[in-house]
């Protein structure tokens, strides 16, 4: 277990900016990419488990942005872009400050909201995507449930729908 244990993120939300206006929806720049916890968990093979959801189904945000939205660590947020919408956890970023930017490690959750446009360069656009973040009361889905909900490859057959 040692290899995927995450450092504890402090649970303090600093509302030090008194004139920070509370907002329901935040417009942000979305970045995705690799992160050591996601990498370790993925290659170890533990993708069906809760650990994977905790390391890849999470948006690392600037604490100030979280204060604006009024969300704490491990609260659910809905992230929307032109390509889709997905519910992930919010968590304080180790790399803060980076107000207006969120980071979601690569994985099935990030995939839903990144762009598949390659501009004829073979490489999809994984970084620098405009997105919005809002509070959500939905639970973050486990990998298998997410794959079923997003792609519905076999659920159609199972339910007899075509």
């Amino acid at each position, binding site marked *: 277990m*040692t*290899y*995927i*244990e995450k450092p504890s993120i402090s649970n303090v939300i600093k509302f030090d900016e008194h004139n920070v206006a509370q907002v329901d929806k935040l417009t942000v*720049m979305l*970045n995705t*990419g*690799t*992160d*050591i916890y996601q*990498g*370790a*968990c*993925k*290659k*170890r*093979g*533990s*993708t*069906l488990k809760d650990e994977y959801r905790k390391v*890849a189904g999470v948006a690392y945000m600037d604490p100030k942005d979280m204060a604006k939205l009024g969300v704490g660590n491990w609260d659910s947020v809905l992230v929307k872009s032109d*390509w*889709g919408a997905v519910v992930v956890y919010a968590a304080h970023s*180790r*790399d*803060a400050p*980076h107000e207006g*930017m969120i*980071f979601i490690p*690569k*994985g*099935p959750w990030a*995939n*839903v909201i*990144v*762009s*598949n446009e*390659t*501009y*004829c*360069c*073979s*490489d*999809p*656009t*994984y*970084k*620098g995507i405009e997105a919005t973040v809002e509070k959500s009361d939905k639970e973050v889905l486990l*990998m*298998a449930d997410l*794959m*079923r909900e*997003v*792609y*519905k*490859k*076999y*659920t159609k*057959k*199972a339910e007899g729908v075509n």
Partner: protein
Amino acid sequence: MAYEEPITDYDKIVENCTCAFCGSNCDDLDILVKENSVVGVRHACRLGASKIMEDEDQRLKVPMMRDENGELVEVEWDTALDAAAELIANSIRPLFYGWSETNIETMKPGLELTELVGAVIDNQATICHGPTVQAVQNVGYPLMTLGEVKNRADMVVYTGSNPMNAHPRHLSRYTTYPKGWFRKRGRYDRTLVTWDPKYSDTAKLSDIWIPFEENGDYEFVNAIRAVLKGKKLTKDVIAGIPIEDIYELTEKMKNTQFGALFFGLGLTHTLSKQRNIDIAIQLIQDLNKYSKWVLLPMRGHFNVNGFNIFMSYEMGFPYGVDFCRGYPRYMIGETTTIDLLNRKEADVFLVIAADPGAHFPSGANMHLVDIPVIQIDIHWGPTTELADIVLPGTFVGVETEGTSYRMDSVPLHMKKAIDPPETCREDEWIVTELLNRVKKIKEASK
């Protein structure tokens, strides 16, 4: 992290194994084995160790196919291989994707199968360093080996890459910390620079951190090139960086004895894509008027470079090679995986040692819902949720030996430490079996 007792309960140590995770291919790992299972590993980083101490629960152990309810059920090897061969032999536009986490030996029959059925063969470079390969074709490649950097470099620059997260031993084994022939004091004799909009874990260790704006890389590098050419910058701030800092940095870069630039996906995944790399390579060319500079892409998987080298050697093209006309063709944006999926062109998808379920945008993955997917892998992952036929492979570098290429194109032998589970088969064997079975089907239908 809690303190853990050293592991003393083992039968033997297999020394100098090569790590099968990232492109640093550390070849100094000691694997501790007890009763044919790995109980510990020494020298690996968190990433390497997590992969070698794999999660047994999710290991794919038997061949599987979907039943009428869409559930994966165990089948015989023969049944699964025949079904897969049948799909491949009868397809019009098969796409064989992956290959970066297996050995070169598996790629040989893979390429033969590709030629036989007129498929497209592609690897992870298509979604990571593809633009790098294109840029190298545009403007060249001032390459070195990591050993040179270790012995000579007095300035190391990382941009668009966060090795402390993706290649954790890169700094400590090759570039920054080790003592080298001309850098007797190791870290103290080198300047570490990070250009990254984020205060990344690597930036935290650096001597100089240049936080240019998001998507500001192209402008920033161009500014340095302008200064190098003796031009005056007319704006006060460029890409979020005050010009005094740009002048100062350029001066430092000119006055190093041996500089090395490492770049990662931060450059290839933003909007300027291969143009970012073009400009980075040209920067290195310009710097060489003053001092010795080299650059290297930070390749992700341990054999992603190997595939590109293998394909270039065999077919003349690095990735995304299309054989549908009977001869190899390569056309970025046409014969590359994401584009083929976006256009809904492929009709059978074979994925080996890769996880598109976890790494492709879902807009591209959506096409995998409509076509049969054959998966060769070792763990039940996101792709397995989309797979119709699952063939369990073995773990290269732990259970199977083979050849891989490090990010600086040095080939390394990967050792075997334990025997694979009885019901699994080596990737090379699986692909060769598929090849033979497809040949038989083709011959019978003549």
